[in-house]
Structure formats: structure tokens, C-alpha cells
């Protein structure tokens, strides 16, 4: 159905966002000799093999020992290294929360925590691996920057950008092959929301894989005569409050969309901004206080209400409350 729709962004190729990370890391490594990589027995899954091959002296296999990896990374910043850690999102956050909290965030260390297989779209491995709480945990930490890019190109650009940013960063990406609909030469500005589609009736704020769903939702809504603005919130923290407020001042209602728990996610952050400044009707697309499960990525997107159709439904709800 996506193909017959007149979406404002289109794609000819699909690729996993984790490959954007792997390719971005390689380029960041070429540009800056201080960049080092660490991985906990998931080099292939994280696409860190090319970096390892080109910079064997700047790459460290730590084995299945994520807590140790976070401590090592924090230590390597003392002496000027810029460590990029790689493992699945669950083992990058929940498993090592206190190590990140004390040794990285509180200590203000320049570590880039790079997390693949986030959300339900990792598919068949199931709920033990499908973390849906990581954005919340990471955004709660003072000093932490939280980024969730939407496709291969944006993940690659974000990876290169965080190498130049001073401070701890959580970079979240995923496993499945996903449409590439953003520009390969884009400039990635941390903390700057990207208005992808202009609209006047409603704003859709989306992050990560769900930005594509928002683009599809806009096209479905357009056919029904509803004009949706689509804003890509790749940086959840610091949140671009100015862009959010400017958009809702025009549209008067909004929907957030994310592959994450509603509790603690992007929607929460936006709602806080709105309540403080301009409380307009808002609806939320995300996982509603539930763990995930095994299944294909698409079956899971449907079951957990993360598809374009779900965004459309929530848009109508928000519009009705205007």
C-alpha cells in the first residue's frame, strides 16, 4: 500500500540503520585518530568489522562483559580518546545503567554509547532483547544526549556528528532493513529538529523507524484532505522546544510516534514542553506499558500499534479534540 501512496519522501533502497552506524564509525575513525571502538561479542551485529579491520590498534573486543566495557570506555576518555561502545540496546542501557550513570554521565565522560537492535523491530529474539525503555532511562540522566535517527543515511550522519560533540551520547538504532528516504549528504545537527513536511492541521513528531511511518501517514491523511506537518525529532535530548512550539502554534494539535514505551519516551518530553508553554491536544503512538514478544518486525509493528495507520487514527483523535 505504501508504494501506491503519494508520499513526499520516497525510497529506492532499504538498509538497516546499524549499517549506517558501522559506515559512519569508519569515517569518523578516518577523520579523527582519537576515535576508538569497543564491542562486547557482537562485532558483526553492530557492523563494527570494517572499523576493526582498518584500525586494529584502536579497537577492543571486550567479550560478553558490558559493564566492564562501559567502565573501560569511561577510562579511555581520560587521555583524550573518544570511545564508541557497541552492543544491543538492552545491554547498552538497562544492563549497565549504574556504570553509565556514575562513570560516564555523572563523571561527564565523552563516551558514545551506540546501541543496535532497539525496539520491537529486532523481531524473533523476543522481549528479553527488545528494549522499549532505553530512551527513558538515558534521557533521565543529566548530561546525556539522546539521539534516535530514522534511516541509514541519518544514522551515518549522526554517528559522524557525535564524534565531534563533546559529552556523553546515547545513539539508538535498529536491526531491520528500513527505507532510506533521507539525503546521503545531509548535515546532522544535534538538537535541531527537522521539519520534513509542512502542514497546517496537525503536527506529527516522530523519531527513529517511526519517522517513515509518519511520512506514510501524512500521505494517507493528505488523501483525506487533512494537512499534517511531519517533524523528525532525531534528538530527543536536548529537545528542540522552539521547533515544537512553533509548529503547534500553527497546527494546534499533535501526535508523537516512537518505537518505545509511552512512559518515558519522546512523547513524554514533548508533553512536558506543551504543558508548560502551550497545552494543545496531543495523542501518543508507542507501546502502551507492555513488553514485546517474538514475531516478524512487521507483525510486531502491527500488533503493538506502531504503523502509519495507527498514527492516522491518533491524528483524527487529536483533531477531534481541537
Amino acid at each position, binding site marked *: 500500500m505504501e508504494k501506491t501512496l503519494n508520499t513526499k519522501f520516497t525510497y529506492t533502497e532499504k538498509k538497516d540503520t546499524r549499517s549506517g552506524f558501522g559506515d559512519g564509525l569508519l569515517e569518523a575513525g578516518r577523520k579523527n585518530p582519537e576515535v576508538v571502538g569497543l564491542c562486547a*561479542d557482537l562485532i558483526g551485529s553492530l557492523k563494527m568489522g570494517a572499523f576493526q579491520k582498518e584500525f586494529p590498534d584502536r579497537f577492543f573486543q571486550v567479550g560478553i562483559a558490558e559493564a566492564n566495557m562501559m567502565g573501560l570506555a569511561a577510562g579511555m576518555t581520560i587521555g583524550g580518546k573518544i570511545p564508541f561502545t557497541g552492543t544491543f540496546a538492552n545491554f547498552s542501557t538497562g544492563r549497565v545503567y549504574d556504570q553509565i550513570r556514575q562513570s560516564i554521565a555523572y563523571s561527564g565522560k565523552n563516551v558514545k554509547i551506540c546501541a543496535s537492535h532497539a525496539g520491537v523491530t529486532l523481531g524473533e*529474539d523476543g522481549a*528479553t532483547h527488545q528494549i522499549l525503555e532505553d530512551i527513558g532511562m538515558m534521557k533521565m540522566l543529566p548530561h546525556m544526549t539522546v539521539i534516535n535517527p530514522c534511516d541509514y543515511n541519518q544514522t551515518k550522519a549522526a554517528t559522524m556528528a557525535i564524534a565531534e560533540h563533546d559529552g556523553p551520547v546515547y545513539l539508538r538504532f535498529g536491526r531491520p532493513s528500513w527505507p532510506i528516504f533521507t539525503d546521503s549528504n545531509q548535515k546532522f545537527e544535534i538538537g535541531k529538529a527537522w521539519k520534513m513536511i509542512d502542514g497546517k492541521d496537525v503536527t506529527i513528531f516522530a523519531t527513529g523507524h517511526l519517522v517513515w511511518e509518519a511520512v506514510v501517514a501524512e500521505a494517507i491523511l493528505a488523501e483525506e484532505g487533512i494537512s499534517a506537518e511531519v517533524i523528525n525529532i532525531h534528538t530527543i535530548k536536548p529537545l528542540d522546544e522552539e521547533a515544537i512550539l512553533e509548529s503547534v502554534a500553527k497546527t494546534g494539535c499533535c501526535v508523537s510516534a516512537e518505537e518505545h514505551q509511552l512512559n518515558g519516551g519522546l512523547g513524554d518530553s514533548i508533553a512536558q514542553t506543551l504543558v508548560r508553554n502551550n497545552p494543545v491536544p496531543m495523542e501518543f503512538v508507542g507501546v502502551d506499558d507492555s513488553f514485546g514478544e517474538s*514475531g516478524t518486525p512487521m507483525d510486531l509493528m502491527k500488533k503493538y500499534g506502531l504503523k502509519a495507520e495507527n498514527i492516522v487514527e491518533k491524528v483524527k483523535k487529536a483533531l477531534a479534540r481541537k
Partner: protein
Amino acid sequence: MEKLSIDQLNKTCSQVRRDILRMVHAVNSGHPGGSLGCTEFFVALYFNQMEHNTNFDMNGKNEDLFFLSNGHISPVWYSVLARSGYFSVEELATFRKIDSRLQGHPTTEENLPGIRIASGSLGQGLSAGIGAAQAKKINGDNKTVFVLMGDGEQQEGQVWEAAMYAAHHKVDNLIATIDLNRQQIDGLTVDVMDLQDLRKKYEAFGWEVVETKNGNDIEEVVSVIEKAKSLLGNGKPVMNLLHTEMGYGVDFMVGTHKWHGVAPNDEQLENALGQLEETLGDY
């Protein structure tokens, strides 16, 4: 449950291996390598060594308990649970599909009989097993707790926190086992992060250590578990170092990490099934 003979155990192993391969093939995902390597161990436990009740009860009082810490080898566990009567073998066909009780990694959320705690995030199962063993002691229950871990999994710090605790608290109703297949995702454990001498390490931590030289020989697997049991009750936890071959039973899968988490395609499945007799009927 009636104890199966060595011959019956071997026949069961062949069927369990068929189940594993067909399960992962059907969803083109899952972990055949470790599952195939640990088949003899699971079959020995569930069909010969454990006193367990297939009419599942979470608290498992007055029966032996098993905990799988390396949860990714769920296929072998699911097959053995189904074949021993915890649920129907037909349900194996739902493995890793949406709305299934047979999740990619074992969970309690969907109430699958036989599973007492979720696993999949490595390094956590030994702690849980020790806790359950201590609960048994408090309850005056003299049955045994078994825990299986991976060798790569030994790289997690929590394993060693648990190991220290079990010896300190004299948890001597526990038999832990390590699947020593020398492989993990990124390659050989010796290249990824050398475990060095696990026997010496566990002995230094205060454990009794036994070794299964060939963990794919059912007779030896059974006899070493019996030996491990004979060491219980002496103030020390017992470790069984189980030497296996990842992918055992299928010639093109054996001995390599390449099949850690990759499913066979149609042709490979056919080839593999040709090497394993259908002894109990495919599901």
C-alpha cells in the same frame, strides 16, 4: 517419570535434533549450534537424571529444577520439554512466531510450562538457580537444582559474583554446568576473551569440579551427572564442565561458531535431516 535406557536416550537425541533444526528453519532464525551441542545433556537430564513433574508447578517443591542461563539455546529446551510431556509437540511449530508461548528466548510472561524465569540476557541464570537452591534448603526440600550456562557467558561478571556466593553460603544442592564448546558469536572464546582454566578458577572459588570429556556421548553425560550428584551435600556447590561440539550431529554444522545463530535453508535442512533418524515422529 520412568528412566529411559541408553538406547532410548540416543533415539530421543536424534528426534530432538530434528525438532531443533525444523524449528529454526521454519522461522529462519534462532540458535541451532548450541542447541545441537547440548542435546545429550538435556536429554540425559529430562529423561534419565532429573526427578521432575511434567504437571508444571512454578514453586517446584520436592522436585529437581532446571534453569537455562544461556537462554538462546531455547530450541533444545523446548523440544525436550514437549517430548517429555510439559506441552504438546505440535506447539513446537509456533516457535518464534507472533502470539506463541515459545518465545525466542525462554520467558514466563506467556506461561509456558517448564520455564521458571526469563533468560536471554546472559549471565543471570546462576544467581537465580542459587536462589532457588537456597529456597529449597529453607523449605527442607532435599531435591537438586541444575543450571546450564554457556562458556562465552562466563565472561559476564555476575557469574563470578554468583560463584563466590554459592561457595560462601555452602549451596551444596546445586549442580551447575558449563557448555564448553569453545565458541561464541564473534569466534573462538580463546580469541574473543580467553577463559583460561575454568577448572582451576572454579576450584579456587571453592567449588567441587567434575568434567565431562565428551558431552556428546550420552553414557558419559549420564555417568558424570551421577558422579556430580554423589558430591552433593558436602558443603560445596558442584560444577560440571561439559565439553561439547557446537552443532553436533550435523556434519556441516559441527565445531564452528558460524551456526551459533543462523538457521539452515531448505536444502541444508534436508541434508541435515538425512543425517538424523526420525525416531519418535516429527511434530
